[in-house]
């Protein structure tokens, strides 16, 4: 008897091949059989009308801290994500000496907007080495974790304060190579580094003080293990991005390792630049290098409130001047003054197409909580006023603590982004899951991929979309035995309705340690999520208390399972 049989599903197996109808039987944590299965299972799931696919792999997250209090990485798991890669952008939580905990928390706060209070109240600091951190997160782990180790923290471990001041000596580089080997032996899937990020004092993060020789020395260690290098290049400039990907290509060729860089956005003003970057990516792949650009599926959102000058208003000098030079009391007074208000409203008319589509994200008063989540246009209709008056009135009522979201502000060309997402040398990722938790929701990018680019636009087939976020990701990252529905593979499986899978509306929840809050999106159309053969989440029952998440690719003794990317 099998442990679990999934019957009558439409199997999209992750290979990109056409879907087919079949049952899938699981024994333990592996797929035992795919076909017409007559034997019974101890548990059975009817997937009639549903797609059965490999679990999705999210290669760019910052769940490092959340995993310490939430082994499910909620709500990522409920969206069908069965494997996450934390530790991106040069930042991981290990290895880390006790005296640098405050420093690293500051960097996470600055770069990834993780609240300081969550670290203070949600984290018991009982590790220093990478191995100890892995042991720590294994407790109660419901989602698979393929952790990167951050270049910045390796530098801090070896160099101390000098990591934030200078290049490394030959002896220090040798020491960093040794630390990296220890991390890879303990289960790190690769190394991350950054060329753009700033710390809590707006100084460059430690990895940015490294010279090319240091990066290459660390890449040589990755070569010993065949593991990946992730970088954040100067993504806002095409020439610098191309220079970095050329550097990555040389490293990839010399040490035979995969590399990936993120993000790569399509904005109205950089269409030509994206074409140039992708041409160079194609050229480097033609040389045999592996330089995978990561592209996110969701459009870019920008948040603001009137207490802080936002460049969103830079084309409205009257507004920008008030936001820039006014104290909160002066700004509120300006909004209340009839003559000033009349001028502001008149000036704002050039964006009258934008204002109704803004969404109210956050207010402080109970009275206005009922509007949170609604568009400004909807609130205007409810109040019998205009959208711009809604923004002004709410800001007065909330003493400027009314936060708005300008969604869809970039990376929103269906044609251009769709073409990128299905490009054979583009890696779908860059969700930033677990980060920026008070600016926007980083969950549901996979649901958005299926809802928008597969179902609504027909820009790619469901088989191609599944392949992109399962077997292709597993191959790029060297994650063994996952990403395909094949006999003998680990049973990470998602069952979803192809007609309804989507990301839910963004909502504000208070579930972060230290009474913290964040923006999340619920899953829509996802029925069941299976991790390592165990049901981890269902739409009916929610998260399962039995947890089977693993750390991938695991310790060095498991290296025989490694598959080359």
């Amino acid at each position, binding site marked *: 008897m099998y442990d679990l049989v999934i019957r009558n599903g439409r199997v999209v197996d992750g290979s990109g091949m056409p879907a087919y109808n079949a049952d899938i039987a699981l024994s333990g944590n592996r797929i035992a059989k795919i076909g017409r299965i007559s034997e019974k299972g101890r548990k059975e799931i009817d997937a009639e009308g549903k797609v059965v696919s490999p679990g999705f792999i999210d290669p760019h997250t910052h769940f490092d801290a959340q995993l310490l209090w939430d082994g499910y990485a909620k709500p990522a798991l409920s969206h069908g994500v069965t494997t996450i890669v934390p530790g991106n952008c040069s930042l991981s939580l290990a290895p880390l000496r006790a005296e640098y905990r405050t420093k690293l928390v500051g960097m996470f706060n600055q770069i990834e907007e993780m609240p300081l209070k969550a670290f203070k109240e949600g984290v018991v600091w009982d590790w220093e080495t990478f191995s100890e951190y892995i042991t720590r997160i294994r407790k109660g782990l419901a989602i698979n974790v393929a952790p990167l180790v951050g270049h910045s923290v390796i530098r801090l471990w070896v160099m101390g304060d000098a990591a934030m001041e200078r290049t490394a000596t030959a002896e220090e580089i040798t020491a960093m190579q040794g630390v990296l080997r220890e991390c890879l032996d303990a289960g790190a899937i690769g190394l991350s580094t950054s060329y*753009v990020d700033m710390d809590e004092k707006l100084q460059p993060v430690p990895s940015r003080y490294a010279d090319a020789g240091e990066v290459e020395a660390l890449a040589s260690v990755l070569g010993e293990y065949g593991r990946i290098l992730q970088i954040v290049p100067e993504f806002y400039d095409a020439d610098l991005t191309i220079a970095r990907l050329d550097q990555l290509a040389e490293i990839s060729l010399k040490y035979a390792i995969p590399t990936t860089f993120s993000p790569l*956005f399509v904005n109205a*003003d950089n269409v030509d*630049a994206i074409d140039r970057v992708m041409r160079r990516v194609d050229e480097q792949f033609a040389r045999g290098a592996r330089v995978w650009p990561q592209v996110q599926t969701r459009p*870019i959102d920008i948040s*603001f409130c009137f207490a802080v*000058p936002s*460049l969103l208003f830079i*084309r409205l000098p009257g507004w920008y001047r008030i936001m820039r030079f006014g104290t909160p009391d002066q700004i509120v007074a300006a909004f209340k003054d009839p003559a000033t208000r009349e001028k502001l409203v008149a000036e704002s008319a050039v964006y009258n197409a934008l204002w109704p589509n803004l969404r109210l994200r956050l207010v402080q008063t109970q009275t206005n909580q009922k509007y949170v989540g609604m568009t400004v246009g909807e609130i205007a209709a409810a109040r019998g006023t205009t959208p711009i008056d809604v923004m002004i009135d709410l800001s007065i009522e909330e003493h400027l603590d009314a936060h708005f979201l300008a969604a869809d502000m970039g990376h929103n060309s269906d044609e251009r982004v769709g073409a990128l997402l299905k490009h054979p040398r583009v890696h779908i990722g860059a969700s930033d899951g677990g980060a*920026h938790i008070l600016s926007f929701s980083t969950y549901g990018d996979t649901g958005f991929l299926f809802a928008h680019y597969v179902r609504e636009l027909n820009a790619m087939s469901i088989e191609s979309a599944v392949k992109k976020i399962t077997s292709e990701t597993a191959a790029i990252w060297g994650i063994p035995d996952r990403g395909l529905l094949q006999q003998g593979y680990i049973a990470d499986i998602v069952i979803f309705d192809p007609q309804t899978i989507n990301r839910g509306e963004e909502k504000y929840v208070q579930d972060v340690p230290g009474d913290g809050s964040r923006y999340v999106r619920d899953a829509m159309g996802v029925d069941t999520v299976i991790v390592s053969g165990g049901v981890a989440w269902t739409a009916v029952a929610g998260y399962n208390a039995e947890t089977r998440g693993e750390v991938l690719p695991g310790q060095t003794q498991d290296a025989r399972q490694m598959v080359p990317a």
Partner: protein
Amino acid sequence: MSGATISDVQIAAAHDGDAELVVTLAHENGGRSLVALDEFAVRTLLKSCGATSADDLIGAGWEHVRDALVASSSRYG
């Protein structure tokens, strides 16, 4: 770089979801490049160009952009 001027300005999203300004520099040889500016750098740029709005920056020389970036990055030195 001599003679390069701002030919376009666009609002874009920074890494943290805030808005930033991306200016396009048009070079004498026909080339174009993009430079991202944070709020402090934009404020410095507006002041040095005597501009009150982003659109007023069009036509300004690249030296203003350079100086604004230097001013922004040297705040914490």
